[in-house]
């Protein structure tokens, strides 16, 4: 008798060279306008199979239009779209949504109210093998036993999981999410995000999330594209986006940003909270520039505890405290009226009205020359 050890049936997305990874989605110089409004402007992006891409931007930035172009609900004015290597949109080509092999999950779960959970999940499946596949998916999204419930008998989170199962069922090349968690309350939202991410990984799916919620985008995505006024400003991993935003807009949209004005001297930017080496290209001496410091990078020292009196222009006054639970954010105002934000653990908070000086430990920080448009 031979003992066999069964390997766990977990499929991991294989890590391969970027060049050899087939693309689930490719857009080329995609453009769409509605009358005067340019909704999507020259958008080129590539989404390898198995990756989760978040598209983040303020409302009206064109992210939803981008999603609808990919889905085939809108026709681009210029540019092309390939899904799984097949051209679906182009100058002389427009594959209708039903033939694009995409799945879609909306903010409002959009379950068919006249069909039960099983009927919803089975909607996109061929008749053969339908029951098996539905059972698989019901189990995958953790709704076993609820197959015969009607949509209105489900909670918001359950509805979203059914919507996800329905989109996954036909094994689409790409799943599109349009603000999928916005209609849920905060606790449920973060819990469901984690679950959705796990389900998508197990299913080996490729996903495009559109959201205006930066926390959501950073948490769920492998890479995030930040959009503004129809254009993609930056596509990077979440860490990269937070630590090295390409311009002031991205800096301000992803996390909270302090932009401190200063002047370049000997390759370093001199600001009221210290001198910093500029990341990236060297700047000429005398250039005016702003450095990006995140609130948690700034540290406060009460003036009263200093051994020698500081220079008056570096003194800041705490004008407001915002309690965030584990952290407290302090809004500091300088003599000149500049406001910056510093975060401390709740245990080390200071009172409103305290005079402090601030300094930052970071040595190399993003620097944006003053006068650049972004």
């Amino acid at each position: 008798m031979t003992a066999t050890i069964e390997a766990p049936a977990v499929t991991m997305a294989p890590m391969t060279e970027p060049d050899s990874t087939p693309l689930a989605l490719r857009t080329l110089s995609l453009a769409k306008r509605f009358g005067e409004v340019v909704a999507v402007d020259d958008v080129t992006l590539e989404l390898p199979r198995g990756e989760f891409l978040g598209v983040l931007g303020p409302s009206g930035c064109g992210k939803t239009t981008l999603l609808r172009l990919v889905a085939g609900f809108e026709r681009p004015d210029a540019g092309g779209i390939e899904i799984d290597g097949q051209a679906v949109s182009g100058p002389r080509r427009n594959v209708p949504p039903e033939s694009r092999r995409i799945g879609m999950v909306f903010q409002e779960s959009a379950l068919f109210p006249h069909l039960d959970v099983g009927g919803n999940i089975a909607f996109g499946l061929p008749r053969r093998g339908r029951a098996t596949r539905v059972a698989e998916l019901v189990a995958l999204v953790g709704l076993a036993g609820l197959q015969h419930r009607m949509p209105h008998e489900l909670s918001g989170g359950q509805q979203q999981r059914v919507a996800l199962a329905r989109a996954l069922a036909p094994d689409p090349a790409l799943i599109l999410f349009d603000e999928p968690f916005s209609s849920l309350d905060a606790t449920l939202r973060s819990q469901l995000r984690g679950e959705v991410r796990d389900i998508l990984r197990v299913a080996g799916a490729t996903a495009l999330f559109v959201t205006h919620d930066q926390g959501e985008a950073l948490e769920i995505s492998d890479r995030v594209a930040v959009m503004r006024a129809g254009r993609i400003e930056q596509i990077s991993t979440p860490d990269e986006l937070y630590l090295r935003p390409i311009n002031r807009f991205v800096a301000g949209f992803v996390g909270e940003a302090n932009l401190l004005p200063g002047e370049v001297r000997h390759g370093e930017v001199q600001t009221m909270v210290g001198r910093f080496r500029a990341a990236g290209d060297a700047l000429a001496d005398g250039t005016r520039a702003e450095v990006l410091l995140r609130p948690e990078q700034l540290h406060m020292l009460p003036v009263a505890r200093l051994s020698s009196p500081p220079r008056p222009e570096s003194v800041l006054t705490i004008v407001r405290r915002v309690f965030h639970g584990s952290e407290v954010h302090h809004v500091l105002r300088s003599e000149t009226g500049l406001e910056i934000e510093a975060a401390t653990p709740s245990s080390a908070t200071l009172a409103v009205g305290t005079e402090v000086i601030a300094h930052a430990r970071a040595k190399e920080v993003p620097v944006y020359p003053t006068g650049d448009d972004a």
Partner: protein
Amino acid sequence: MVTLASLRAAGTRPGARTPAPPAWLVGAGVLVAMLGLLPIAYLLILAGTSEDATSLVLRDRTLGVLGRTLLLAAIVTSASVLIGVPVAWLTARSDLPGRRWWTIITLLPLVVPSYVGGYAVVAAFGPRGALQSLLEPFGVERLPDLYGLPGAALALTLFSFPYVVLSVRATLLRLDPAFEEVSRSLGRGPWRTFLTVTLPQLRPAITSGALLVALYSLADFGAVSLLQFDSFTRAIYVQYRASFDPTLAAVLALMLVACTAGVLLAESRLRGRGRYHRSGGGSSRPATPVRLGAWRWPALVFLGLVVGLAVVVPVGTIGFWLARGVSVGESFATVWGPTLNSVLASGLAAVLAVLASIPVAVLAVRHRGALAALVERATYAGFALPGIVIGLAFVFVAARYLPFVYQTLPLLLVAYLVRFVPEAVGVTRASLLQVSPRLEEVARTLGRSPARVLREVTLPIIRPGLAAGGALVFLTAMKELPTTILLAPTGFDTLAVRIWSATSEGFFARAAPPALLMVVVAAGSLWFVLRQERSR
């Protein structure tokens, strides 16, 4: 510090997305729209090709008809305002005993078809009506003649004043009582407050209700023909019966359409402004009911009189002639044929109207744009045209181009379709608006073509709405008289035609059973309307 708010404000959301509709949908919608425009277009062609159309308009007889029609509309409208405003105030704002009951009972006449009203007036107060039979033991052989203007005005007023009640009551219930309270606190008594504060605020509602009454009396055929008053509708019918030359009938019909179009235009303008007036918004605090005190008794007498004439007399008259009919051996069996015909024609009309409403509503809701707006407006033409005009146009079209459909059920159904499709479109449109477009988009991504999405997702979801629209059309079509008279196949009597022809010939007892059934149908549609309003 870069603020998130300032960044979020950047950029604007693109305007409403209107995907291009599929060709089959446009085709179906345009077909329905063209049917709706057919009657008016054909009448215009008919009048336009005739050399003496202008002289026909200016003939003494034509101008006489115009004058009589406008006079009737003016009398009915004024009388309806005089009755409707006090009724609305009493049921909405006073401490009258049994207010809820009075509210429903004073609205009931609204849904009674005018020819039943005409029948009630003739059969009750006519020279040989029920009143005369009751007075016969006292030697009354004949009551004074009430045919013509007095009878027509009485019948129309009794059955259209609830339009004024409806609109005025709605405004009274919504008015902020603070205005009146301020006026009282500034030293004005209840009467002066009503005249100087409440009444001016009611003016848009009164005008809008009055215009509906005017429209109703312009377009009515049943009451004026039974009471033999030569307004447009009756003149058109008489002209059509008397001669084979359709030109004069077409000219009369177009003049009538011009009158109704004028009223509709005034009404739509006023409605736009009326909404503006109402913009008080916020929480609505119900007003404290006004204590009537000793005024309660005259108020009750007034309401009693109104309800007596508009509800008790018709029902009593029907009862009286039913009993009289039974006593002389009149058979109830004669009513089954017309009932079956009515149910058949109305049922088919309901199905057709609902089917036709689908492409129009889908275009209007999902593919907003110039084309959709045009299609939707064209279908509403059926709403604006008096039934006699639609019937006449289809008679002419069929007689000239399609003699083989003339006086067949299909032609009657097409005319019904034109007349009632707006009602179905209204309900279908409202239910479509409740369906998120996201549902249809999800179905597309799951492999369904637009046509299959409509069949497998949209229509199943709005099925209750479609059924409601069908029921509404069914009830309305049951009551339809003028198009039925003009277009029904020979011998195809419906309940409406039976009531009308029996009354015309003075067979009051024979008209009673179908009239009773019609009152039941009317009560059904009132229940339906009230239910619709509550669910909104």
